[in-house]
């Protein structure tokens, strides 16, 4: 596994350019591409979230705003320009910072949340060789960087000087840090079995043996603990207590408006993409084709295994996981705070610890 920056540096090295110039330039281009991926991901995900929720509730969803003359109306692609229009609307909104807020921290908070999500993408492989920087501690880096966002959440809630914001941010912080423990313990199992923190090695192990979700009953359980905990970590509905519209207005985002508020949404949808890609790489075989696990297909079909199609498989698995998150939203009612803490501390953590014990025993015996 080589990173995209390394391979570009290598391919440009024939022009005799100084590496001190070449490397930052290539990284800047990569960063801009990542930002575009985040923006496009948010645009598409918001549109599909609205459409999917509309179809699940037997209504039509957005159907008025078209793009390039495709209005659509009641057709399934109706209102395809809705999120783009929303983004433009947010750009021309008045930027309000309340009088008695801590203005410096209030401006800093969206930046920290956005940076946390943005930096996580550095170590996140989209396919075998499509990664900005190929860390040998990849999974640990992602685990560390994805928890930066909680600092921004606390800052946003505290600096707003609003009771809803403060309470929402404290709930969010308690929830996010609590659910980090089951996530860490579940990832630990995979590291223990694969014997490496490098995401490429973890997928290679799955190519040599089998997908982690099918490896043993404990890793199967670990996948579900991981997945449900990541839904809580990204503050999605059954676990959206910090933002609970019906009780806390909008939680820690109450005082934000315009583009600063849009940054929170951008980061939330980016986090959804991150956790789905991590789940698909770590537990669901990453860029390996699912056709491989059933041996009924002829060998010629395994052309769907190549590195070029790897990007498709990673995104395919991630999109399915994101779809299930949206499905959850319209299936389960919101939990109460005490139920949320009960689920984390008294169900997931004991199970994850027992899982760790049993899987290391399993690895010793087999």
């Amino acid at each position, binding site marked *: 596994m080589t990173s995209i920056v390394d391979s570009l540096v290598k391919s440009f090295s024939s022009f005799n350019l100084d590496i001190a110039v070449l490397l930052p330039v290539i990284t800047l281009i990569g960063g801009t591409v990542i*930002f575009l991926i985040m923006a496009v991901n948010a645009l598409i995900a918001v549109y599909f979230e609205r459409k999917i929720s509309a179809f699940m509730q037997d209504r039509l969803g957005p159907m008025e705003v078209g793009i390039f003359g495709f209005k659509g109306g009641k057709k399934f692609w109706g209102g395809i320009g809705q999120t783009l229009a929303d983004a433009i609307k947010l750009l021309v909104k008045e930027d*309000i910072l309340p009088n008695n807020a801590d203005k410096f921290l209030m401006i800093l908070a969206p930046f920290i949340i956005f*940076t946390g999500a943005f930096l996580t993408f550095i170590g996140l492989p989209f396919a075998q060789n499509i990664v900005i920087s190929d*860390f040998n501690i990849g999974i*640990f880096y992602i685990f560390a960087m994805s928890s930066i966002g909680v600092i921004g959440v606390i800052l946003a809630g505290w600096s707003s000087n609003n009771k809803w914001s403060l309470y929402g941010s*404290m709930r969010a912080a308690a929830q996010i840090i609590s659910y980090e423990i089951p996530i860490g313990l579940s990832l630990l199992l995979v590291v223990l079995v694969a014997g490496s923190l490098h995401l490429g090695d973890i997928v290679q192990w799955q190519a040599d043996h089998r997908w982690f979700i099918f490896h043993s009953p404990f890793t199967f359980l670990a996948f579900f603990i991981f997945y449900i905990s990541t839904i809580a970590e990204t503050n999605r509905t059954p676990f959206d207590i910090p933002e609970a519209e019906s009780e806390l207005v909008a939680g820690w985002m*109450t005082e934000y408006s315009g583009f600063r508020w849009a940054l929170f949404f951008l980061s939330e949808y980016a986090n959804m993409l991150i956790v789905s890609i991590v789940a698909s790489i770590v537990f669901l075989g990453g860029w390996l084709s699912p056709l491989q696990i059933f041996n009924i297909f002829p060998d010629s079909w395994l052309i769907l295994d190549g590195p070029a199609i790897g990007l498709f498989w990673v995104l395919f698995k991630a999109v399915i996981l994101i779809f299930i998150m949206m499905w959850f939203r319209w299936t389960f009612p919101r939990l109460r705070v005490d139920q949320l803490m*009960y689920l984390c501390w008294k169900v997931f*953590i004991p199970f994850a610890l027992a899982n760790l014990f049993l899987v290391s025993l399993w690895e010793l015996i087999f």
Partner: protein
Amino acid sequence: MYQDFLPIIIFTVLAAVLIGVPLGLQYLLSPRKNKGGDKLISYECGELPEGSAWVKFNIRFYVIALVFLIFDVEIVFLFPWAVVFQDLGLLAFIEAFIFVLILVVGFIYVWAKGDLDWVKMNVRYGKGRYANLQSKGETS
């Protein structure tokens, strides 16, 4: 090797630029003149806000943060252990078992004290305003 970690610095700077450009665009496009008056008061469902929002809040959050810190440090210690687990075998298993067991004892203690419950329904020595929370019979 250090080249792998260079993008972190570059991305942090880039993130500031990528946020700054749309914020500047918003500054140019959005209305600025009609700011003022009641619009800049903290939102409290249409009422005038009562005092500052920087108030005392539930001690629960602190307990959760404290327990989290211990678990998080434990996970950080276990990551290197997990990498070499296959090489060390039984020795690594026993070492980590003792290490985690010490933590689990503390975890059971916190659980038994009821600090993992969001709402503590019983206290052991309820006095004054907490007298009605005095747990009946079995504990005290």
